[in-house]
């Protein structure tokens, strides 16, 4: 159950996502040191929490098995991508470093959708930046050997400030971090500091979310299949914006370890599919 001070951000297919202050409600999970006069309590930081809903349609024991497995997978993947300095929205105890306001994110997404009514040749500057940022984020994730497993456009968010204000230096400025999470946040900051070459920071303004179906793999095949999921999302949902995908792929290939090999494998994966006219 979500604590009282949690605020619902979004109800998705699988879960409810809340924003809540990191505080006493976490005590059962994580004993915080009692505040003393000498060391006043750290100001509350905000965390994003994800509550996986039990599925009424699923047999209870099957549901429990799946939920537990996915929660572990998600936590593991998040930790890993965070270590790789990719800004990923966090579940549970992983703090959100630079919270985006939802209204900003929604506005950005809507704008991107309007902008998306173009072809590869005439991508608007904004879409080009979004595509590059996407390719960059994917490369970072795959270089950490994290396979997302559900790379749809619903599982991506744009950071408003990064894409819309390219000239201002909007660097990551984490809110005060609670003591328990300080270690992981600090290591991420270090990584961010080294990886942050451009004004957009390491992730370039695209945030990947929902790692519930993710797993770890270093195989070209798995990475190529991951890209194919994204490709299929574009062909089915945004066929008019396929150019964004191709541009993102180019950036990805330039950026990711073994990029050209992954691209070659992706080209073969793309031809798979049942009842496709493939030969003869």
């Amino acid at each position, binding site marked *: 159950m979500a604590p009282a001070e949690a605020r619902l951000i979004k109800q*998705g*297919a699988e879960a409810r996502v809340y924003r809540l202050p990191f505080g006493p409600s976490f005590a059962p999970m994580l004993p915080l040191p009692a505040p003393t006069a000498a060391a006043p309590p750290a100001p509350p930081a905000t965390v994003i929490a994800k509550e996986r809903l039990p599925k009424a*349609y699923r047999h209870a024991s*099957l549901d429990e098995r799946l939920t537990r497995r996915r929660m572990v997978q998600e936590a593991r993947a998040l930790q890993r991508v965070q270590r790789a300095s990719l800004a990923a929205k966090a579940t549970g105890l992983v703090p959100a470093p630079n919270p985006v306001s939802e209204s900003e994110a929604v506005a950005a997404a809507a704008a991107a959708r309007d902008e998306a009514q173009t072809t590869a040749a005439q991508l608007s500057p904004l879409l080009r930046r979004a595509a590059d940022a996407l390719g960059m984020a994917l490369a970072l994730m795959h270089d950490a050997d994290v396979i997302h497993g*559900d*790379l749809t456009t619903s599982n991506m968010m744009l950071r408003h400030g990064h894409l819309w204000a390219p000239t201002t230096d909007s660097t990551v400025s984490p809110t005060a971090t609670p003591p328990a999470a300080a270690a992981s946040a600090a290591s991420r900051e270090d990584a961010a500091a080294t990886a942050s070459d451009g004004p957009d920071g390491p992730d370039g303004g695209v945030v990947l979310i929902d790692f519930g179906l993710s797993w770890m793999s270093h195989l070209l095949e798995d990475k190529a299949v991951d890209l194919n999921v994204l490709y299929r999302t574009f062909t*089915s949902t945004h066929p008019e914006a396929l150019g964004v995908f191709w541009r993102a792929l180019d950036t990805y290939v330039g950026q990711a370890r073994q990029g050209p090999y992954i691209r070659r494998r992706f080209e073969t994966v793309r031809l798979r*599919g049942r009842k*496709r*006219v493939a030969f003869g």
Partner: protein
Amino acid sequence: MIAIGLEGSANKIGVGIMAHEGPDGADVRVLANVRRTYITPPGQGFLPKDTARHHREQVIPLIAEAMAVAKLSWRDIDCICFTKGPGMGAPLMAVAVAARTLSLIHQIPLVAVNHCVGHIEMGRQITGAQNPVVLYVSGGNTQVIAYEQQRYRIFGETIDIAVGNCLDRFARIIGVSNDPSPGYNIEQLAKSKPDPVLVDLPYTVKGMDISCSGVLSAVQEIAASPRFKGDKRKPHVKPELDAADLCFSLQETLFSMLVEISERAMAHIGANEVLIVGGVGCNKRLQDMMAAMSLQRGGKVFATDERFCIDNGLMIAQAGMLAFREGIQTQIPDTWITQRYRTDAVHVLWRN
């Protein structure tokens, strides 16, 4: 306007006659819908050659029966629709030959129809669902489909075998009867026990795609193990699992995967209607699970019964007539059939 539809892409041969009347064809009436199924003995599947022979034997009497039910003569028919694919080659060909022959004898235009689109259009017509996410699940196909820009686009699908194929093959392994269909008998077995055991089976969802071959291998392995067969050295000890447990577990696992990818597709495109079509779609458990999912997210589920869910000629007439009304006809040289014909290969002229 009246269309006759001939379907024979798998082990069913069906003939349906349908009328679209009124100025914009809005008054839709079913005039005939007859079907025969090629049923094989337990433990055997249907082979293309034998299925085609069955269809060749049945096609003429079945067409005559449909015409008699509809009380029509060939002068009344405006177009002859037949299944172009996807499906098994030999049975498709048997039915296409009959369609061509009728067209030449009676001088009636032909319309070649994609089988999957037939299922979708029939489901939409019967249930009145406007723009649903479609779960098409049968012996040969498993796809999650949504309409976008004049195509039925495939959002997710099985990456190996179809769900129906998985059920059929499991039925063969444990010797469940194919009459009236293996899926129906598995459904009955699954609910035959008040408190069945849920066996752990692989649950493979990859984004909006699923994989069923691993589930089949796993349940096959269990069916061959002492847990199901019993221990020969201890004949008095009852095995811990019986057919009902395995059928139940298989259904629960496969259908959960299906409902999950349907829900993902609904969430992704922001739809709140879901339509189930295809032979497996008449399974009540699947319909109930889908309804439970829809209820949780305030959506609505549409399903049809076996007359329209399982392959039939009517759906071919329905999809064919929608195309025919847009001026589409298939000339004789183009009436070849194909085993591979993707749902998204059809240009859906009749929708905006």
